């Protein structure tokens, strides 16, 4: 229709172009829809595409432009949502057979707030089933693919949310992060990916995985866009008692404040020395730290010795809370129900046996065991105590430093099927999990590339901040983004034919 190709544009560029009538929101919508039609058959980032919702939202924006009315902050920006977030008019499947036909009965607060900020809803993104995974492969609809190399995973669990942005379909997207499910796919797809502080963003309407760890956050192509999305979705929500009441905050100015002179930054030395991290990733993180020093920041080192136990604590707490949260999928009120049950027990057992995939069953079993009589204190109780120690170590580090640096992922994107052992998959999140346990914030920002078997693959730097210190995290991330000036257009974007 328009020949418009916005696959490498930032959200704020699109918004400004719509505001100055360079093109209309409707043209943006048609361009994004055409691009999804052209390439999502290959990428499989979407479980459901919603062209009518995008067009309706675009018409509203164009009416505001025509009337000369003020535009919302993300007017006309194509956006996608992880398929565990409810949006009336869409299914919310969690990429699970048990919810394959589930129609959203109400709106997720973060989604509603982003739509109120003017975005064009493109659809719902593929994910690991119920967010259980680090590669996207546990999706019941088949895994999303990495736009940097379609033979590789995009990371997970917010696999499609990451892939849709890296492939130039959505400009921004929302994911959820329980142990790294935003930051890790962000690293593997070369996108900017933020896990806000626990309580910063309402969890209402996002299907719960582990309620004490889950947090919604954005994927984007720029740090500034990440800040703009957080500004739109954050804040107290009466529907989520764990969302925190704070003075209204605006983060875009922090993302434009790229002067880091005087900022105190620390490399987490013992985490960088963990086994499993590849030399390319380690070198890239050290090089980023050197760039910060060159820009005038003070760069030191800290150790977080308890964080190496984070994986153990997480694989008790996460599955325990998940097994409890997923008890609601019993075939009674919604979701899949087995045919011809003889009684309710038979209905529960076979509905859940049929409805859940392998990884979901593994987590439910692990969590049920950890919470069962005689084991609660030995597992859940101990894990919660370890969590206290991990949080204390972070707090002590933040007395001396503004932000901490680690890799986001120990390695770059791997090939489909390369991690068939569950424990090997779990180890993909060793750098991101401690942040969820402590509850503070972290961002993954591209910091370089590694060559692997002929493919050029992005590396992500994790910048960790204290509770509610997202502004500092954005400032550091934006400074590095500007300093490195990496070309983060994936091959799918570079080779993009104009739709």
């Amino acid at each position, binding site marked *: 229709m328009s020949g418009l190709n916005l696959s490498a544009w930032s959200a704020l560029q699109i918004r400004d172009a719509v505001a100055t009538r360079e093109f209309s929101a409707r043209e943006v919508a048609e361009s994004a829809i055409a691009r999804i039609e052209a390439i999502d058959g290959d990428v499989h980032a979407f479980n459901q595409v919603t062209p009518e919702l995008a067009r309706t939202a675009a018409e509203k924006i164009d009416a505001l432009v025509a009337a000369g009315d003020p535009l919302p902050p993300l007017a006309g920006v194509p956006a996608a949502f992880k398929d565990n977030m409810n949006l009336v008019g869409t299914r919310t499947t969690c990429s699970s057979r048990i919810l394959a036909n589930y129609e959203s009965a109400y709106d997720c607060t973060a989604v509603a707030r982003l739509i109120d900020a003017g975005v064009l809803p493109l659809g719902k993104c593929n994910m690991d089933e119920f967010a259980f995974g680090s590669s996207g492969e546990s999706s019941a609809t088949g895994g999303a693919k990495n736009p940097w190399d379609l033979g590789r995973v995009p990371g997970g669990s917010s696999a499609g949310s990451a892939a849709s942005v890296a492939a130039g379909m959505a400009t921004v997207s929302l994911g959820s992060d329980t142990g790294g499910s935003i930051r890790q796919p962000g690293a593997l797809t070369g996108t900017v990916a933020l896990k806000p502080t626990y309580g910063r963003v309402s969890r209402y309407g996002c299907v719960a995985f582990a309620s004490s760890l889950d947090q919604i956050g954005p994927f984007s192509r720029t740090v500034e866009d990440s800040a703009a999305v957080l500004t739109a979705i954050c804040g107290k929500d009466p529907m989520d008692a*764990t969302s925190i009441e704070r003075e209204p905050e605006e983060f875009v100015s922090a993302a434009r404040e790229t002067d880091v002179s005087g900022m105190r930054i620390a490399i987490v030395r013992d985490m960088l020395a963990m086994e499993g991290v590849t030399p390319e990733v380690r070198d890239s993180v050290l090089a980023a730290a050197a760039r910060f020093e060159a820009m005038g920041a003070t760069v030191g080192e800290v150790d977080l010795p308890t964080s190496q136990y984070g994986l153990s604590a997480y*694989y008790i707490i996460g599955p325990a809370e998940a097994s409890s949260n997923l008890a609601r999928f019993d075939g009674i009120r919604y979701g899949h129900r087995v045919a011809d049950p003889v*009684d309710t027990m038979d209905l529960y057992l076979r509905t859940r046996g049929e409805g859940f995939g392998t990884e979901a069953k593994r987590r439910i079993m692990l969590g049920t065991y950890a919470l069962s009589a005689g084991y609660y204190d030995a597992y859940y109780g101990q*894990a919660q105590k370890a969590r206290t*120690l991990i949080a204390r170590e972070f707090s002590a580090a933040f007395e001396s430093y503004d932000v901490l640096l680690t890799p986001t992922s120990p390695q770059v994107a791997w090939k489909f099927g390369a991690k068939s*052992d569950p424990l090997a998959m779990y180890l993909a999140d060793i750098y991101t999990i401690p942040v969820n346990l*402590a509850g503070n914030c972290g961002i993954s920002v591209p910091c370089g590339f590694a060559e692997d078997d002929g493919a050029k693959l992005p590396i992500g730097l994790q910048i960790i901040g204290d509770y509610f210190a997202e502004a500092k995290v954005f400032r550091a991330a934006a400074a590095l983004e500007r300093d490195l000036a990496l070309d983060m257009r994936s091959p799918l974007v570079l080779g993009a034919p104009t739709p």
Partner: protein
Amino acid sequence: MSLSELEVRHVAMLARLALTDEEVASLQGDLNSILGHIDTIRQLDLENVPPMTHAVPVVNVTRDDVVVLGLDSETALMNAPAAQDGAFLIPRITGGGDDE
């Protein structure tokens, strides 16, 4: 700590999961491998450390005591596998046998 096949079947019943024999066997192996890693947490001295339940402690979160509408019954039932007369329909849970 290591789970026997019998314990795996017991936990599956607690979790209300019907598993095939193949699933029981593979879950037994997976769970024991994962629990073996998890047991490293015992290396930590956690004596006198308080448990952490939430990242940002908030207490007594209340709202004003005003009536707010929830989902109407039509919306609440729209995803029901079976519904009748404004209610969820389930297999019988009392009686049984041939008493009708």
